[in-house]
């Protein structure tokens, strides 16, 4: 059977096809296609997508596809995409990884876009510095936060124990937590989480003692002595029931859902201030934020305002200009700021901070007031963690567990921590 097409039909069909393709080009073709990738939960995705909608409304002809994953799945995915030359244009970057990605040439330097395309004039200077590696800007901070103690106010109230103040020392807090455990108002509730394997806590403790986790030239910033005393302190907390036993702490997968506070195993947990909104959503009782305890009455606070996360632009991107414009919109547009709130931390732009502060609800105000009220507890931003810091975090957790389960003494744990971190950093 042959298909016969008369000349007239052919012409008509061709014309239809042509008009269809013309329709296609006007309706579907785009001037630019932007891909975003970030980690986080659904509420963050909703806020981010809303900003994308706002941006599209102002920039017709741009298409934006956003994708998000949990923290643990995010880094393998990003590394694979970068290796496959398929990196998203706008990448959410963490303080921990920015050095690794910048050194390996995966991120585009943004200095040349300032200030005309990327206007960070009213940003906190120190926070802009946080996104710089080797003197070039590789990440625009999306917000500031700080390590914090999360407190279940109701559990403290039930046990008749006052909440800690800015002056409370670790020793005093240990006693309060032990009392709360003994009060036994709730079955299986301990005073606090076992924070001995938590890197932000340990870093805070070191900074109060004038040391650091890592130095600027990628060395271990503390000695066996500090680490030993740290493990020793937690051993005492474990002995008198101030903190949860090690097998309960080991359930913590380093996220909000499995934190002992959320699981109802402890009245105090440790996290970052920008997570407060999500913590409050997952906890029935009213929560509040406090700083980390002081080592001694007169020690300086070890806190710092951490750029919680950045937007970086991929060096592989074919639409760098557009990506930078999107990032600029994200951090300087008032409507975008309102959509984002404090979910990624307190906005770095002073003007946006005012816009957001005016509209925050009670829960949103807690982290804002906490971070802006740190006062002299907050010090200088430490240098970005060196390559290998990810492995270092796991090492601290591992050794703290060995001490917790009684497989290592505090002294051996301290020595081993310094040894292993030194070895990891040497390897890079």
């Amino acid at each position, binding site marked *: 059977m042959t298909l016969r097409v008369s000349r007239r039909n052919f012409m008509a069909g061709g014309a239809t096809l042509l008009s269809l393709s013309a329709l296609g080009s006007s309706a579907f073709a785009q001037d630019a296609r932007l891909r975003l990738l970030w980690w986080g939960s659904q509420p963050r995705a909703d806020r981010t997508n809303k900003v994308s909608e706002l941006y599209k409304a102002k920039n017709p002809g741009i298409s934006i596809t956003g994708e998000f994953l949990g923290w643990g799945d995010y880094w393998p995915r990003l590394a694979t995409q970068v*290796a496959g030359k398929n990196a998203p244009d706008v990448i959410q970057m963490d303080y921990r990884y920015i050095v690794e990605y910048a050194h390996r040439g995966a991120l585009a330097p943004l200095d040349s876009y300032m200030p005309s395309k990327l206007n960070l004039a009213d940003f906190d200077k120190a926070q802009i510095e946080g996104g710089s590696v080797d003197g070039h800007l590789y990440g625009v901070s999306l917000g500031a936060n700080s390590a914090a103690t999360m407190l279940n106010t109701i559990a403290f109230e039930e046990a008749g124990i006052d909440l800690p103040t800015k002056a409370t020392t670790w020793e005093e807090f240990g006693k309060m937590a032990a009392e709360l455990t003994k009060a036994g108002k709730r079955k299986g509730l301990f005073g606090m989480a076992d924070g001995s394997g938590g890197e932000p806590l340990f870093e805070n403790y070191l900074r109060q003692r004038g040391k650091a986790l890592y130095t600027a030239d990628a060395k271990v910033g503390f000695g066996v002595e500090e680490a030993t005393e740290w493990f020793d302190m937690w051993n005492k907390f474990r002995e008198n029931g101030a903190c949860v036993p090690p097998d309960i702490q080991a359930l913590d997968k380093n996220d909000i859902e499995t934190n002992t506070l959320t699981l109802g195993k402890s009245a105090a947990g440790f996290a970052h201030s920008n997570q407060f909104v999500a913590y409050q959503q997952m906890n029935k009782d009213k929560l509040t934020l406090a700083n980390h305890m002081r080592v001694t009455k007169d020690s300086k606070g070890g806190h710092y305002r951490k750029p919680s996360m950045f937007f970086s632009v991929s060096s592989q991107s074919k639409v760098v200009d557009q990506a930078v414009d999107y990032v600029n919109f994200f951090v300087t547009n008032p409507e975008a700021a309102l959509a984002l709130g404090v979910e990624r931390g307190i906005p770095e732009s002073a003007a946006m901070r005012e816009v957001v502060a005016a509209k925050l609800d009670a829960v949103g105000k807690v982290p804002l007031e906490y971070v802006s009220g740190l006062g002299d507890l907050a010090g200088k931003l430490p240098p970005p963690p060196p390559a290998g810091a990810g492995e270092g975090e*796991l090492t601290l957790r591992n050794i703290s567990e060995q001490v917790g389960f009684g497989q290592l003494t505090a002294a051996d744990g301290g020595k081993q921590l310094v040894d292993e971190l030194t070895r990891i950093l040497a390897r890079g």
Partner: protein
Amino acid sequence: MNNAMRTMPAEAATVERYQGVVADSRFKRLWNANAPGYLFLLPWLLGFFGLTLGPALISLYLSFTDFDMLRSPGWVGAANYVRIATADPKFASAMSVTLTYVALSVPFKLAFALMVALALNRGVRGLPIYRAIFYLPSLLGASVAIAVLWRQLFAGDGLVNAALAQFGIQGPSWISHPSYSIYTLVALSVWQFGSPMIIFLAGLRQIPQDMYEAASLDGASKFRQFYKITLPLLTPVIFFNAVVQTIDAFKAFTPAFIISGGTGGPINSTLFYTLYLYQEAFGNFRMGYASALAWILVIIIAIFTAFSFLSSRYWVHYDD
């Protein structure tokens, strides 16, 4: 071409030309006969070369480089392998966890599978349903959902401890205590006994019934019948199951990944070899080193499999 063949002799073509057509037609005939086969194989062939052999060869190359996923790989010779052999305590720790897991999970799983297969081999009413039910865990077992469920069951306040509490026993948090966590993973693996069970069942069906009849006439007890007839005749099936399950156990990843949250903790007690490999590749940007780890695993599995085959001539009986 059919036309040509038919007309060729009639036209008295030269011998040379005739031979050429025969050779040509043989190939064509072969092709015509096999083309559908290759066509149907095509997806598998594409998958094998594109997704298995190709990546495997690339990973062999990468294992001699310092590839970090972001920059192009640089040749480092055998440095990765030297490091594994001499300066990596975590390799030793991951290997010991994995060997413990293999040594415990494979025998227990096979014994359990055989027991259930024996029970199901009798003429039970509704047999297909039981088979399906017992097979179910194997289908679901490797999934994330089941690993999460396992986490709930064996947590400090999970169902297992609730059951123990009925007898006045206060159990620990099984999955988060370094002394027990590996055993919960072994239990999870044993629970997925379905696929060896089905194979055992098929093997049991192959054993001629008259052997048992003869044996019982001679007054052999049930246990003796099992020991002297069932087990020896089943050895080829046991051998097959043992090899397959051992390879599977070496490659176990999902349960440990989910239950420990990817850390291999507490204290590396669930740091399976593949989990360590994953951490090195994607957590620490050491794809080259992870490739070397992967090839070491290939070699270890090959050695175990070769050893099984060598030993098999002493204990596997083929009925012939």
